[in-house]
């Protein structure tokens, strides 16, 4: 017909990096247009930080030299980065509406569908850690490790956030059920609370102390606390890094298997 209609278009695979960037940009745009879904992620950690320090600071600090605000800041950051399930919920909507099928029908690399969303999650997690850091600074928490320590602190927390997000993606892809995805919060409760969240591990007793010793979040908390209050304590940091890695490996394997199942054409 017209000259413009005669464009020769060559459809092909756009390349992995291009796929990931296109998918993550869509995910980020939907976060920005749906702020209600992330607002709790900004408020909950500040609330816990305020309540925990308000209730327990004098009590815990009475026993020794512990700076309870510095002790609680890692708890707040973990709370901030473990919440953002919204991309997994988007995935559920995509599967239900048929949009996921539409994406699968393009030449997109399957893995890019997941990685693209995770890139958006990392951006969100970093944004969520900002108010926590500001609050910490405002109440006088200072990093022994300086600015590099702040970066390491956020990076380690984001790594954990990604590992936890893997579970919600696995559930989303496996079940395509929003209710099931929301219930992945149930996994978060024991992981967060059966830890030296309120008091140091040495002060814990009974079954909870035993459980906490096997909880990866215990070592994540240990690393984050050490970065703030002690300095570059490599073995403490490695313990956290390794235990989070175990979680990441398990959750990513689950997510990849669920993705494989979802696109298997069975």
């Amino acid at each position, binding site marked *: *017909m017209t000259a*413009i*209609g005669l*464009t020769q*278009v*060559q*459809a*092909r*695979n*756009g*390349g992995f990096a*291009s*796929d990931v*960037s*296109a*998918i993550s*940009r*869509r995910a980020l*745009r*939907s976060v920005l*247009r*749906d702020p209600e879904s992330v607002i709790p992620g900004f408020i909950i950690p500040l609330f816990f930080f305020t309540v925990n320090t308000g209730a327990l600071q004098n009590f815990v600090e009475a026993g020794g030299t512990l700076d309870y605000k510095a002790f609680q800041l890692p708890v707040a950051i973990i709370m901030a980065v473990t919440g953002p399930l919204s991309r997994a919920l988007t995935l559920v909507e*995509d599967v239900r*509406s*048929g*949009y996921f*099928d*539409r*994406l*699968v*029908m*393009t*030449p*997109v690399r399957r893995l890019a569908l997941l990685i693209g969303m995770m890139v958006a999650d990392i951006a969100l997690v970093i944004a969520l850690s900002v108010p926590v850091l500001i609050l910490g600074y405002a109440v006088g928490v200072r990093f022994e490790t300086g600015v590099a320590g702040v970066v390491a602190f956020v990076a380690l927390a984001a790594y954990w956030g990604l590992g936890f997000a893997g579970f919600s993606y696995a559930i989303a892809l496996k079940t395509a059920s929003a209710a099931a995805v929301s219930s992945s919060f149930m996994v978060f409760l024991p992981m967060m609370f059966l830890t030296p969240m309120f008091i140091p591990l040495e002060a814990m007793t009974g079954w909870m102390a035993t459980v906490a010793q096997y909880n990866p979040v215990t070592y994540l908390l240990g690393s984050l606390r050490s970065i703030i209050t002690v300095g570059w304590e490599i073995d403490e940091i490695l313990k956290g890094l390794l235990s989070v890695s175990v979680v990441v490996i398990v959750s990513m394997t689950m997510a990849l298997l669920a993705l494989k199942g979802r696109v298997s*054409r*069975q």
Partner: protein
Amino acid sequence: MTDEHAVITNSLSRSFGAVRAVDAVNLSIPSGEIYGFLGPNGAGKTSLVRMLTTLLLPTGGSASVAGHDVVTEPAAVRLKIGAALQAAALDDKQTGRELLQLQSRLYGLTRPAIKQRINYLADLLNIDEALDLLIGTYSGGMKRKLDLAVAMIHEPQILFLDEPTTGLDPISRVELWDEVRRVNEDRGVTIFMTTQYLEEADYLAQRVGIINQGRIVAEGSPAELKRSVGSDMIVARIDGQTSGAAEACEQVDGVESVEVYANEITLSVDQGSKVIGPVAIALDQSGASVEDIVLRTSTLDDVFLHYTGARLEVDANIAKEEPA
């Protein structure tokens, strides 16, 4: 074969457990054709389309789309097909343009090509003014048009449309039909569409396949199919038993076949104006209480009734509500 045929299937089948959703379907669709696939809900239309669009593996037989095997070369098939499969599978949180851009990038289109394609499709499908609004604000008809644009962004040779107008109001439906026809005429795109609306198949499709319980029971142009059941139809609605009345009609000269569905007797006849008198007399003599008797030309619904023994439910409901 590659150039002349957009879709070829050979005994294509798909079972889900013991259920044979698609049962040994043979199709041969030449390039440039609009092929309408007609059947009620659950007839196997969607499973067939999902196999042809590489979303579902067959459990038997084979299928070649745009010259490539759907089982062994899904990636090659995907580059050449576009599909709008369910009630507008879009994302309400994006604008039309953003979604088209995302889709273009996944097909590896270059920046200038993306711009050109979006402008071209916006013009072709009349979605210009909505492109920069959030999809959540679109009307149903506008969503379907964008759905079509997204399916066509990479200039596919074959478009699969699964019930493209289900849920649309009559005006939007006719509008979408015109867009579909324009896409076919303008670009020579082969269109494979499923529908449960007879008028839709009649209006758009050059050939129609009727599917029932996973099998193709009739195939041909709408005119051929209508001819196959006779040129005229006499439909008598009976109050009470239809059995004696139907037998009486069979004896009348010029009656080619008799179908009974619910309280309706449908006769396909050669020359309706000559036969309707004798039919009315035969009905009267059989003692049936005739509520209503109508002479009309045959429709695809009659074809459907003839081959499947049932009317398409959507239309049957409307027909029942009409008199009162």
